C-alpha cells in the first residue's frame, strides 16, 4: 500500500501522540518498581525518582525475611481468587442458561428479579449490618467472597445474551429428542459452547477478587486474614494513624506497623506482578470482553 504524503504525515503525527500516551500509562507503574529497588537512604534524601542514585534490594530482602506475613496474604489472595472465580462462573452460568430459554415459564419475572438489582441498591449500611450481625462473616474467608462480588446482574445478562445468540435452538431440540436432561445439556452443550464468554467473565471476576480491598476494609481486622490488597491498605492506614497520633501504634503486627517506604512499594509491586505477567497473554480476552459491553444485552 502506497501512502500519500498527507497520510504519511498523519501516521507520524498520531504515532507520536500515542507513544506519549503509552508512556503516560506505563511510566507511573515503572516508577513504582524503581522506588521498590531504590536504596532506602537515597529514597529519603533524594525522593522518589526514575533514576535513583543508588539501588538496593533491602526491601525485597526484608520481605523475604518476613515472608510469613507477605506469603500468607499472597496465599490467601490466591485462594480467594480461585474459589471466588469458580463460584462466580458456576452461579452465573447456572442462572443464565435457564434465562436464555425463551419458553421457560416465569422468565420475565426472573429477568426482572435479576435486572432490578442494577437499578436499586440498599447501600452499605444495611448490607454491613446484615453480613456482620446475621451471617457473622467478620474475619472469615467468606468476608472476601460473599458481599457483592459473587454475582453481578451485568454478567448474568451478558452470559444469557451470549447463550441466546450463539447456541442454535436446533441443538437443544436434538439433545432433547435424544433424551438428554437439562443438566446434561448444560454440562455437555451450554458450557462448552459458551466457553468464550465464560473465559471473559472469569477473567474480569478473577481480577475483581484479586484487586478487592473494600470487603477487607469493612469486614476484616485480624492481620492473619489480610489479603495483599488489604495488607497494602492497612499499611497506609497505620502510617496515617501514626502521623495523626504519634506514639500510639495500632499493634497489628511488626511488618504492618512501620514498613519503610521502599518496602511498601515493593509489596505493592509484588501484588501487581501476577497481573503484569499474565496480561500480555490475556490482553485479547480483556479487549474482547470490554467490546461485548458495546453490544447491548
Amino acid at each position, binding site marked *: 500500500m502506497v501512502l500519500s504524503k498527507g497520510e504519511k504525515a498523519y501516521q507520524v503525527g498520531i*504515532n507520536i501522540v*500515542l507513544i506519549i500516551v503509552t508512556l503516560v500509562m506505563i511510566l507511573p507503574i515503572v516508577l513504582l518498581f524503581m522506588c521498590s529497588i531504590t536504596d532506602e537512604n537515597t529514597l529519603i534524601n533524594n525522593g522518589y525518582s526514575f533514576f535513583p542514585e543508588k539501588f538496593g534490594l533491602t526491601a525485597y530482602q526484608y520481605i523475604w525475611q518476613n515472608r510469613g506475613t507477605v506469603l500468607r496474604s499472597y496465599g490467601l489472595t490466591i485462594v480467594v481468587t480461585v474459589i471466588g472465580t469458580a463460584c462466580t462462573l458456576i452461579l452465573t452460568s447456572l442462572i443464565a442458561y*435457564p434465562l436464555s430459554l425463551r419458553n421457560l415459564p416465569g422468565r420475565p419475572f426472573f429477568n426482572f428479579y435479576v435486572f432490578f438489582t442494577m437499578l436499586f441498591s440498599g447501600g452499605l449500611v444495611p448490607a454491613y449490618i446484615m453480613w456482620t450481625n446475621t451471617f457473622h462473616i467478620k474475619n472469615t474467608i467468606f468476608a472476601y467472597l460473599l458481599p457483592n462480588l459473587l454475582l453481578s446482574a451485568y454478567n448474568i445478562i451478558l452470559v444469557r445474551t451470549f447463550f441466546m445468540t450463539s447456541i442454535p435452538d436446533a441443538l437443544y431440540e436434538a439433545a432433547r429428542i435424544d433424551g438428554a436432561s*437439562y443438566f446434561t445439556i448444560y454440562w455437555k452443550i451450554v458450557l462448552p459452547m459458551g466457553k468464550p464468554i465464560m473465559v471473559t467473565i472469569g477473567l474480569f471476576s478473577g481480577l475483581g477478587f484479586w484487586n478487592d480491598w473494600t470487603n477487607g476494609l469493612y469486614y476484616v481486622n485480624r492481620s492473619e486474614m489480610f489479603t495483599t490488597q488489604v495488607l*497494602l491498605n492497612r499499611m497506609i492506614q497505620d502510617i496515617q494513624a501514626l502521623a495523626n497520633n504519634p506514639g500510639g501504634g495500632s499493634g497489628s503486627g511488626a511488618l504492618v506497623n512501620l514498613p519503610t517506604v521502599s518496602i511498601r512499594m515493593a509489596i505493592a509491586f509484588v501484588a501487581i506482578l501476577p497481573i503484569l505477567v499474565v496480561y500480555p497473554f490475556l490482553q485479547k480476552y480483556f479487549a474482547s470482553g470490554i*467490546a461485548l459491553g458495546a453490544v447491548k444485552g
Partner: protein
Amino acid sequence: MKQKLTWAHFKQFIPLYIMMVPSLVYIFINNYIPMAGIVVAFKKYNVNDGMFGSAWCGLDNFQFLFGTSDAFVMIRNTLLYNVAFIIVNQCLGIALAIIISDVINKGLKKLYQSSILLPFLLSMVVVSYIVFAFLSQENGMINAVLKSMGKDIVYWYQDNGPWPFILIFVNAWKGVGYGALIYIAGIAGIDPAFYEAAELDGANKWQQITKITLPCLVPQIITLVLMAIGRIFASDFGLFYQIPQNSGALFPTTQTIDTYVYRALIQAGGIGRSSAAGVFQSVVGFTLVMISNAVVRKISAENAMF
C-alpha cells in the same frame, strides 16, 4: 402461540428452576435483604434490637444529615466530579479510539491498545501508592523537581486547590482505556465503504471523522453517557478514599456521598447519618436512571437500556 400452563407442561422445567435456586438465593440475600434494610435510615438503630426491631424515629436522621454543611459539600462534589469525569473520559476515549483505529502498523496498534488498558487492571490501593510516589510531601517526585528548580514545595495532601485536577487526571488515567476499547469496537463495525466513498469525493481526514466516524458512534456514546448519568449520584469509593490518602484536610474537595457513608458508619453514633445518606443516594440514583432511560427511549428507542 401461547401454551396453557398445565402441570404436565410445567413439570419438565423443574430441573431448570432447581439450577437457578443458588443464584436466586444469593441475589435475595446480597441485594434484596439490604433493600428492605433501608428502613434502618428511619430508625434509631440499636445493635440489640437489630435492623428491623429498632425503634422508629421518622425523618430525624435525614434532618440531622441535611442540617450539617456536610450534605451540601458531598452532593456538590459527587455531581461536579461525575460531570467532569463524563466529559473528560468520553472525549479522551473517543479521540484515542479514533487515532488508534487509524494506526496502520499492527504491532504498534496492539501496543497502544494494551497500554491504555493497563491502569484499569490495578486496584485503587496500588494506584494510591503510585500517586503517593509523585505527591508525597517529603519524598515525592514532583516536590523533588520543584526543589531542584528552586521553587517552594507543595503540601499536596493538605492543599485543597489542586485536588479536582488530580482526581480528574487519575480517574482518566485509570478509566480511559476501558471507554476507548468500547469505541474501538464501535469503529471497527463501521462499513469501510463509507470511507472509500468519502475519499473518492475528496473528503479530508477531519471531514471523515466528523461526518462518518462520530455519527456512527452516536449509539455507543448515548449508551455510555446515559449509563454514566444514571450513576451520577454514585462515586468510586476507592478513588475518593484512597487517592487523597483519607486526609481530613482534603474533605472539602474530596468528600463524596460514598466516602461520607463509610466514614460516618465507622464513627461512633454515625450509623443514622450514614444510612440516611445511603438511602438518599439510592433513591435519587434510581430516579435518575429511570428518567435518563425514559429520555433515551423517547429520542431513539433502540438505544434504551430497558
